[in-house]
């Protein structure tokens, strides 16, 4: 659809801003959605897509700005208003009752299932009619618990259509679908826009965005950084826009690398649900070098991180630490072998929320350094926590408060201090600055650079290309569990990395996945 065509504006966002403490989730976001149009909302995890949709649905109240639906301003903080105005949302995680039939799920929330006015026969007839019109093949009498993931998604879409939704929001709809199911979904969407619906399609899969949308809106760090008509852009440009193409001059100088401290040779790990495992991965982490791992999330970063953390072991291939293959492999042996681990989720994995700072500070070393024969040495532990607070500038009232009261940045500083005090020679930093304010970001980065200069091998996993390009001495891109060749500092262009991130290049370089579909 050309933008010059005068179609009705169904949704208008103006200057929407939302802050959580120091973090700005959305900053001055404005755009219009027209009747019969598909807008792709593109952005990395944490770019602010979900927050924006939650504002639209009244879950959050915007700090500034307005939302208009069909020309009528949406009252803030009223969850039903958007639904009543004709917005239907298909969440990434379905909200269906497994023990009810398809038609019951669809009616749920519109009518009481036991209401005398409810006529199942008519409801089912209408569902059959809708499912025929929109190519959403599903049996109204089937139990939801017995449906495949693709079928459940169809039920969710039917649910929205049944309520006469005129705007359909799909949050990462293809994340759970097979390519065939995704194709069927697109057919449905084409039918929907032909009959006048408007669609917001949230995704970070570039080829889908290219094939289904009319316009692409790119969010980064909460800001709308670009708006493109789909037929005037290409995947490479979008990838670069999404992850941040401004390449600032490297502030951290390259240094000559040392010997590899950790090597992976043809290492594979099993897939974990929808997240791919590693596919015959080769990787060297060298002393005095920051290795950046770029990639769209959910492409094997979790598997690599779990592997180095000691949570999983290679199913195939060989892992060498300091030139030898570790005999046993667990979080404890990983720590004992000098691996510092900064986990991706500092709230759930890195700390225990209701433990105080002292108890969190010794989480990894209580057995070796803060106890003797099973007796805790609490004075020593507390002194250690106090020294961490001082050395790593953890802003807090003291070591006796529960860590849940700390800001993300201070929490991360404590984790950083906890692992760096062990003088590690390998550092795994998984999304170390996600959600942090700029001061904490710079602090964490400078600590990683210092550790590198001391001779540590650092693996930096990040979805933020700016961060990768600024810090890394060498960069790999990970895509579906496969690793691109290494790019030395300064030799990589964002477009090129974007293309690898989009999954191109692996075949032409003769890298094929080790799975059953390898030719």
């Amino acid at each position, binding site marked *: 659809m050309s933008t010059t065509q005068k179609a009705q504006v169904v949704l208008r966002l103006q200057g929407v801003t939302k802050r959580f403490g120091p973090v700005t989730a959305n900053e001055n976001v404005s755009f219009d959605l027209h009747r019969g149009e598909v807008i792709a909302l593109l952005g990395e995890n944490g770019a602010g897509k979900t927050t924006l949709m939650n504002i639209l649905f009244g879950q959050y109240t915007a700090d500034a700005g307005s939302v208009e639906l069909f020309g009528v301003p949406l009252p803030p903080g009223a969850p039903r208003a958007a639904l009543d105005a004709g917005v239907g949302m298909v969440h990434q995680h379905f909200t269906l009752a497994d023990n009810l039939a398809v038609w019951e799920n669809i009616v749920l929330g519109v009518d009481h299932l036991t209401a005398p006015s409810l006529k199942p026969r008519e409801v089912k007839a209408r569902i059959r009619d809708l499912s025929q019109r929109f190519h959403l093949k599903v049996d109204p009498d089937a139990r939801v618990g017995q449906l495949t993931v693709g079928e459940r998604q169809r039920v969710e879409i039917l649910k929205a259509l049944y309520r006469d939704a005129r705007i359909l929001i799909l949050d990462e709809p293809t994340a759970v679908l097979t390519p065939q199911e995704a194709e069927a979904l697109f057919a449905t969407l084409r039918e929907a826009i032909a009959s006048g619906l408007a669609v917001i399609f949230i995704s970070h899969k570039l080829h889908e965005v290219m094939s289904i949308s009319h316009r692409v809106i790119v969010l980064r760090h909460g800001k709308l950084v670009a708006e493109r008509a789909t037929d005037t852009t290409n995947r490479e440009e979008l990838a670069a826009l999404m992850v941040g193409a401004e390449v600032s001059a490297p502030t951290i100088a390259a240094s000559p690398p040392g010997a590899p401290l950790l090597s992976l040779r043809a290492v594979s790990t099993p897939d974990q649900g929808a997240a791919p495992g590693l596919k015959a991965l080769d990787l060297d982490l060298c002393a005095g070098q920051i290795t950046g791992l770029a990639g769209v999330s959910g492409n094997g970063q979790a598997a690599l991180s779990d592997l180095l953390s*000691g949570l999983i072991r290679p199913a195939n291939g060989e892992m060498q630490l300091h030139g030898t293959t570790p005999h046993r492999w667990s*979080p404890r042996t990983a720590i004992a072998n000098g691996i510092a681990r900064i986990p991706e989720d500092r709230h759930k994995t890195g700390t*225990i*929320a209701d*433990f105080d700072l002292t108890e969190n500070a010794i*989480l990894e070393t209580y057995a070796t350094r803060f106890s003797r024969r099973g007796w*805790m040495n*609490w004075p020593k532990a507390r002194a250690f926590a106090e020294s961490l607070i001082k050395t790593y500038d953890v802003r807090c009232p003291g070591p006796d408060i529960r860590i849940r009261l700390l800001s993300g940045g201070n929490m991360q500083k404590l984790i950083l201090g906890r692992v760096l005090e062990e003088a590690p020679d390998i550092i795994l930093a998984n999304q170390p600055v996600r959600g942090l304010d700029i001061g904490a970001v710079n602090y964490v980065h400078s600590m990683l650079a210092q550790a590198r200069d001391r001779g540590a091998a650092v693996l930096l996993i990040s979805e933020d290309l700016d961060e990768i390009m600024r810090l890394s001495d060498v960069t790999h891109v990970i895509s579906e569990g496969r690793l691109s060749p290494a790019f030395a500092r300064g030799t990589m262009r964002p477009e090129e990395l974007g293309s690898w991130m989009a999954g191109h290049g692996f075949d032409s370089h003769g890298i094929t996945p080790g799975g059953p579909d390898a030719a």
Partner: protein
Amino acid sequence: MRLEPIASPSAARRIMPPVLAILATVLVASLLAMVAGGNPFAVLGLILKGAFGSKFALLETLNSATPLIFTGLAIAVAFRAKLWNIGAEAQLYAGAVLTVVLGTGALGLPAYLLLPLCAVAAMLAGAMLLLGPALLKTRLGVDEVVTTLLFNFIFLLFVSYLLEGPLKDPMGMGWPKSARLLPEARLPRIVEGLRLHWGFALALIAALVIWVINTRTTLGYEMRAVGQNAQAAAFAGIPVTRVILKTALLSGGLAGLAGFSEVSGLKGSLTSDLSPGFGYTGIVVAMLALLHPLGVVLAALFVAAIFVGADSMSRAAGVPSYLADIMLASALLFMVLAILLTKFRLRRD
């Protein structure tokens, strides 16, 4: 209006749940006493007097509190690590069975060894009984609430079988009852001539030991870490499975000691009504104590006082003694509610 979580409750706020729960329980008991035709103040006074009013009453209360301290500790230890042990009842009986088997002289052990061995065997029996469900939980992900709860019924039937069969007292005139323990296998009384036995002292020591384990040892730290956030504990290298199994052994062992203490200290033989549900009441005790081992002692005394006091109150005031059961049940309900309320505050939008 909506509920908003409180980030850091003050010390006063954390102490509030048991206080609120006990006050609300007393209120409910007063109302019910009125319904039953009694004067609420008189009824409550009689309960207090019946529980603490004389030396005899006080010692009776302490005796009744003894098994509740053990089972309360067993539950508190397990719940802290989020191991939901509902099977303290069966573990108690397992301890009692082993005490009877050894204490009636089945192995011909020397007299001076008999008492400590009975205690150790009772602990082991209780521990083994919880180890099974714990292994099923860690290996196969089987819900321990279901397994421990259902095992109570199985084990109680097994005890009935033992009392009708292998353990039946040949001199028992046909009653389903075990033979009496040898005198050397009996816990002596603390003061000669008064009913209070050394089991009570043992229970106090157990509470102290658990308190020390919780606050001073790596195991206490590990159990708390696993209970609060098993994912973070595993990531940090805490052996989560092993900690859960150790917790199970400790918890089951404490419940087993309750059985030992009841048989060896109080009853002298085993019948199938040895425990009127001490294993379940232990859950109330542990919850009222907010899972704190020293709090368990206080909570057990409170619960025991209600039962002992209500018995004598009902004789004097004619209000049925099952008022005690209602008080216990409402104390648990109010406790759960009060914990919730002190975690949140009501906020008007």
